[in-house]
């Protein structure tokens, strides 16, 4: 009789990579809907272009590496990378921008490091950063949110046909763009925050923190809570990041002088905060493994995010913050081993104390 031999662990969770990835895709839907309702169909086009590119690149590289193509394509990991990158890119980005970023993410950031589960850096964020430093012009052209009133004229996004034209011919988006709230806030140097809010349409027509963006962030928060409820990830990394960001904002918001760096609510509901907290920081491959480690990892991403937003050159900095902490994740893992079953307090590896 032949007995199957396998090494531990012998108890497997019933969840497949496929299931987890499907849940993540489902959770992006509210964010995508709100993005589309404020910024037009650009995000959907981004996601479509990115998905096609990602699947094609993934299949090509798997073939080169002699790996089972169908098996890896069906785990949806390439699709998740594509969707996350598509959501992060400015709506109505030219098609070649999306293709370049996605190809870079899949081929270089994922497969050159060994493919699914081996990449030290978040592929979507690598794709984003490569585009951001290579094509700053195209990457900062954000469509104005629908309904934004500037000088009494209501901004109206391009219709379906002109959207397609902008994406595939790569010109003409200039007429539809406006500064994002983070960008506008960064360039305020002389006004009290209250006055600045009144004078800037992005803020004066918003409820809390920038027209359109506040709802986008809330939608991603809802998607994130769904993932938390389905236990796709633990709360440690996202809450850590939001806490890190909030604490930094709390200490640096001096009640709204012209030199202040934005209130807590402004930082929480601006730019890529919620998207990052629940969809990027929680990536199981590139983040830390223990819960304590995740808390530290997330918190430091929040701190770096605030530091670059406030004192750096870029208005938003999620991708940089995440990549910097991806570097540090193994280091954090080294100092935060989980408690071994049957042992006492979880000790660090180096500093074994007298308690042992």
């Amino acid at each position, binding site marked *: 009789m032949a007995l199957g031999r396998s090494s531990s662990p012998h108890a497997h969770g019933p969840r497949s990579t496929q299931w987890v990835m499907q849940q993540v895709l489902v959770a992006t839907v509210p964010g995508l809907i709100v993005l589309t309702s404020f910024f037009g169909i650009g995000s959907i086009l981004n996601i479509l272009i990115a998905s096609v590119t990602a699947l094609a690149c993934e299949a090509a590289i798997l073939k080169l590496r002699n790996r089972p193509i169908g098996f890896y394509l069906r785990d949806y990991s390439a699709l998740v990378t594509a969707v996350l990158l598509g959501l992060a890119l400015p709506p109505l980005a030219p098609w070649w921008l999306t293709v*370049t970023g996605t190809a870079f993410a899949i081929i*270089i950031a994922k497969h050159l490091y060994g493919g699914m589960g081996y990449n030290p850096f978040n592929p979507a964020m690598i794709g984003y950063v*490569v585009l951001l*430093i*290579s*094509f700053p012009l195209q990457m900062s052209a954000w469509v104005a949110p629908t309904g934004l009133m500037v000088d009494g004229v209501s901004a109206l996004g391009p219709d379906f046909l002109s959207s397609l034209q902008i994406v595939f011919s790569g010109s003409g988006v200039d007429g539809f763009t406006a500064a994002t709230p983070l960008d506008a806030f960064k360039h305020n140097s002389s006004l009290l925050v209250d006055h600045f809010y009144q004078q800037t349409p992005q803020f004066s027509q918003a409820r809390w923190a920038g027209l359109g963006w506040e709802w986008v962030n809330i939608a991603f928060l809802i998607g994130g809570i769904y993932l938390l409820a389905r236990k796709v990830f633990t709360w440690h990394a996202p809450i850590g990041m939001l806490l890190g960001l909030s604490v930094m904002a709390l200490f640096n918001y001096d009640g709204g002088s012209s030199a202040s760096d934005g209130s807590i609510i402004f930082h929480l509901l601006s730019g890529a905060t919620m998207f990052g907290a629940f969809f990027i920081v929680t990536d199981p491959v590139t983040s830390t493994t223990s819960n304590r480690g995740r808390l530290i990892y997330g918190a430091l991403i929040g701190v770096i995010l605030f530091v670059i937003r406030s004192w750096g050159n870029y208005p938003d900095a999620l991708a940089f913050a995440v990549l910097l902490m991806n570097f540090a994740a193994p280091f954090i893992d080294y100092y935060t081993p989980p408690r071994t079953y049957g042992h006492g307090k979880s000790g660090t590896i180096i500093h074994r104390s007298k308690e042992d």
Partner: protein
Amino acid sequence: MSDVSYGEISRNGLWNNNPALVQLLGLCPLLAVTGSVVNALGLGLATMAVLIGSNMTVSLIRNQVSDAIRTPAFVMIIATFTTCTEMLMKAYTFELYQILGIFIPLIVTNCAILGRAEAFASKQPLLPAAFDGLMMGLGFGAVLLVLGAIREIIGSGTLFANMDLLFGPMAANWGLQLFGDNYGFLVMILPPGAFLVTGLLIALKNIIDSRQQARLAETQSAPVQGSKRVRTTGAIQ
């Protein structure tokens, strides 16, 4: 050790023991200045000149300098040739000299040069040492050139732009504009692009080598003759 053939020296310098792709020496200038062909060629020629000069001098003094102080002596020789090269470039290709900036004096610290002085020139007569300097310099320069060309094409969409910095006014029209005027892929010009392309070039060399080896093994795999009994006693090598 004076029985090294010139063919062997050329093969080592250009391919088998290429300073940039195999020894991975001199990476700092390799990564820093290969944003365009003209920069790469300028630095490649300068490095080759220093390499030949230092190899020859080291070979000439190899029996006079004691082992204990050989490293400082080598460094001084290399520094002398670097200074000469720097002054020559300042005189004849001033703009290129300004673009390459600190990386010309930094040729002194290029480990490929000190490595050749230590490993080859200090044990060889004049002619092989000079030839080794030439071949190592060519190998290093060739990699610089390929790297510069790839990065220039992908990064800024041009090839051989600004060659007049090196070759004078007659080269002013050598530049090719491959893509549109607005083309630019900044990351390839920046240091990350250099790391990426270098890594891919090393991978390419390894692929070519392993294919060649596989082909060689195929032609040479003769059936094993005689007994194939399993050996149970005696030393296993």
